[in-house]
């Protein structure tokens, strides 16, 4: 019995030694789509910063809004100047928690469903958000993929009536990150 207990304790210690505590990336990809009937409105940034704490499930993202690139120059200009006002609010952030963190085995290669709850700050407004995604563990790296929707009006980003058929208030956000263990 004592030998079994000791073995279990040693196993837990052993597994935790090999489980990296934090994972990060500084080149996460975030894509948003606010396309409406008359217009395709989409942009991508590949410079999002993300950190995941595998022990607590805490998750943080930060993205510079001027880093979003559009196909059309005028659209990019309007996005920055009129909609998100990126001179005034240069950064958007997410802070949250993987609710089912205990169900994710960061030491075993595989794909895991993840449910995330937290707050997004955009355009000076902070709102609660819930999202589902997938965490994939492979060869010591952590992949995160998630898709969720936000309403621009929730963040005081107003779409003028004249362009309501061009820009959707309902915006789909797609996140793709491949994170490495954070040393230190």
């Amino acid at each position, binding site marked *: 019995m004592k030998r079994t207990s000791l073995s279990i304790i040693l196993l837990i210690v052993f597994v935790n030694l090999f489980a990296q505590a*934090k994972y*990060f990336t*500084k*080149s996460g*990809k975030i894509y948003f789509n606010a396309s409406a009937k008359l217009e395709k409105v989409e942009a991508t*940034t*590949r*410079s999002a*910063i993300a*950190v995941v704490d595998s022990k607590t499930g805490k998750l943080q993202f*930060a993205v*510079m*809004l*001027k*880093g979003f*690139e*559009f*196909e*059309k*120059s*005028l659209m*990019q200009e309007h996005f*920055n100047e009129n909609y998100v006002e*990126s*001179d005034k609010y*240069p*950064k958007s952030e997410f802070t949250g928690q993987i609710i089912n963190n205990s169900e994710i085995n960061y030491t075993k290669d595989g794909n895991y469903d993840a449910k995330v709850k937290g707050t997004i700050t955009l355009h000076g407004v902070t709102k609660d958000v819930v999202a589902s995604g997938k965490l994939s563990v492979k060869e010591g790296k952590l992949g995160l993929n998630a898709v969720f929707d936000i309403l621009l009006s929730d963040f005081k980003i107003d779409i003028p009536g004249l362009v309501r058929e061009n820009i959707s208030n309902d915006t789909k956000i797609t996140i793709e990150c*491949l994170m490495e263990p*954070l040393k*230190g």
Partner: protein
Amino acid sequence: MNRKKTILLSVIIAIIAGGFYGGHEYFKGNPDINNLPTAFHTNVPSLLKEFNADEVNTGTKYLGKVMEVEGSLRTIEKDAQGFYTMVLGDKGDMSSVRCALDKVHGLNSDDEHLSGKVHLKGIFTGYNKDNTGLLGSDVQMARCMLIQELK
């Protein structure tokens, strides 16, 4: 009558020309970074020092501006879609200047093995201050291009 026709024709031509110009402006893509005038020319240590001293005013000064930066190349990252990021910074300093290359100005296979000092041009998009002490603070630039490797 001729005068009226001339005026009408002029108005029609003006409308068509305006339409073409408007369409051109509406559909045009982002200008090539190579053709944009540089607003600031600096190096990595000076830039990071400036942000450390006064993050807010330095950010305001550079936000959205075209910059040329020289510094030691720490690493070249390439994502699954083939987009490059060149990371500049001194060894032993966790902070860096991260330059996401424009897809038009990607690297060729020889450039992927660059080392030493480089000279880049791009648009400043923000400064991410590290409050954890674990990641290092980063100056972020987008739509970058490699101007030259410095000997």
